[in-house]
């Protein structure tokens, strides 16, 4: 766009406006997390009366935050790893071969991504109930049940993104490797995967973030032992008191790993996400 004086003025005001929209809630989270409890019990204070890092110490004892953290980590890591491995194989097949059924398969994958989790939650809950009844394996409230349900969104997303990344890679790479005596699978593992690594990491981080933030399945399929962070954070609100300062401190602690991960991989993620849209 050509920069006229009018555009520069519009830009200055526009950017201030947008920055305010983004920053105000972030300011509330950060300042509340360093307030003493008396500051958050009454009317909202714009500035802390004193700065204290005590909320960051107390969050671990008020609720079993470390336990929720472990639960989230277990479920997220397993769901992400499984999704990415299965998706690498499927996406490679879809981007390198044309075979009967390939189109229907990608259509199913693409369309299930559009459906809301609530459509799968109810039937999966019933299937888990039935498995427990007949085989005795408990899935409702177990890590395994949650991991399986998290794959309902992470697997299609991974297949979709990785197909795009693989399709953008030149085929000559594997063909050269195959001339050198590697089989198809060897070429995939030793040549394609290392080259596609940034894309694979970006997809994995994105799956990690979505699973880390998941609320719907976690609200039904966890119990006191397997509760994840997305549900566990509400525990800072008790019957008698809401520990807003601790809730915000815990929010910061819970957000930092995914925020850093996102900012590191955002370049690859955006190029992948927009590859299908920008033409």
């Amino acid at each position, binding site marked *: 766009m050509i920069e006229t004086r009018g555009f520069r003025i519009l830009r200055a005001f526009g950017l201030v406006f947008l920055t305010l929209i983004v920053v105000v809630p972030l300011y509330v989270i950060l300042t509340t997390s360093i307030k003493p409890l008396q500051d958050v019990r009454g009317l909202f204070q714009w500035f802390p009366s004193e700065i204290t890092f005590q909320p960051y110490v107390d969050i671990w004892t008020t609720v079993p935050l470390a336990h929720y953290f472990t639960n989230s980590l277990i479920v997220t890591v397993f769901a992400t790893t499984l999704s990415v491995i299965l998706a690498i194989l499927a996406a490679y097949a879809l981007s390198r071969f044309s075979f009967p059924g390939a189109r229907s398969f990608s259509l199913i994958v693409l369309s299930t991504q559009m459906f809301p989790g609530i459509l799968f939650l109810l039937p999966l809950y019933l299937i888990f109930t039935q498995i427990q009844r007949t085989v005795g394996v408990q899935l409702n409230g177990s890590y395994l049940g949650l991991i399986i349900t998290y794959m309902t969104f992470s697997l299609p997303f991974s297949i979709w993104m990785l197909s795009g990344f693989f399709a953008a890679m030149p085929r000559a790479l594997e063909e050269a490797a195959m*001339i050198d005596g590697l089989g198809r699978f060897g070429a995939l593992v030793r040549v394609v995967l290392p080259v596609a690594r940034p894309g694979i990491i970006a997809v994995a981080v994105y799956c990690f973030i979505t699973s880390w933030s998941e609320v719907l399945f976690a609200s039904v399929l966890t119990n006191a032992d397997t509760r994840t962070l997305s549900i566990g954070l509400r525990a800072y609100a008790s019957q008698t008191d809401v520990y807003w300062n601790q809730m915000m401190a815990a929010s910061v602690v819970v957000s930092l790993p995914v925020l850093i991960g996102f900012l590191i991989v955002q370049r690859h993620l955006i190029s992948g996400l927009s590859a299908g849209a920008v033409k």
Partner: protein
Amino acid sequence: MTTHATAPTSATEVITTGRRGRGPTPATGRRRRRTLFPYALIAPAGVMELLIHIIPMLLGVWIAFLSLTQLSIANWVAAPFVGLQNFITSLDPAGPIGSQFYGALLRTIFYTVVVVGIAWSLGIFAAVLLNSKFRGNGVLRTLFLVPYALPGFVTTIAWAFIFNQRDGMLNRLLVDDLGLLTERPFWLLGGNSLIVVIVVTVWQFWPFAFLMLLAALQSIPDEVYEAASLDGASLWKQFTGITLPMIRHANVVLLLMLSLWVFNQFDVPYLLFGPASPEEATLISPLIYQQSFNNWNFGVGGALSVLLLVVLLIASAFYIRLVMPKGQTIDD
């Protein structure tokens, strides 16, 4: 598999069949292996898709025809078949569930249009501004990504704190600091609650629109704008005459994705209000959740799910037909 008779491929074939030419019919064995190979690769994902998507979808349709309550849930396989009863209950405008369903459907459509409209407008505005060169550009790009990168449950809880009636930040600002209001309005109850859901969802989703649109804008060559400004086209003319048409494809995909996410919204109302939203803010996904897991009315929950699926399919097909020229599909 399409066979391109290019030199490298045939060279590979000569070499590999030469090496492996110990079997009786190496050529057919190899062709068989090559046709089965892609199926072997998609098999694990295919089995998983079957388990997590196809079977649950079919089961979801089936349970819509069962009388499934907290009594029959433990042994739901034996639950009585009631035909279209759940659908009649869900669609009867005079009944308690039917009226809720129509209300929630209309509200969800309204909510989707408003949220996607505002999120898209903020996104394109930010993308146009940040597509120009100035100091601090990189910092702002990163800052604008933060709402999208933060876990939604964290930011929604923070907004619940801001909108708190008695001592939240918003009422402090409106009543105590600016004196615009004398009463402290309830934000998380009654008519205002839908506003809160809209604000929070817009805040979480507009950076995604910004990201996609910025990527699209960067693919437009500068020369096009230079030529247009030489011809005397105003900024607005350039925006409507060049920018919008050239990012049309990105817009089609972006608006579809945003609309689906927003239409299916569950997390924001659940985290703001708990398992049961105020009636004025009840959206479709939370309504199905409420019927199924609060009222233990799984059959009606199933019927509502099927209806939601039908609405989604019709809307998506309509949208794709509307914006896509004939013969073009979403993935090309």
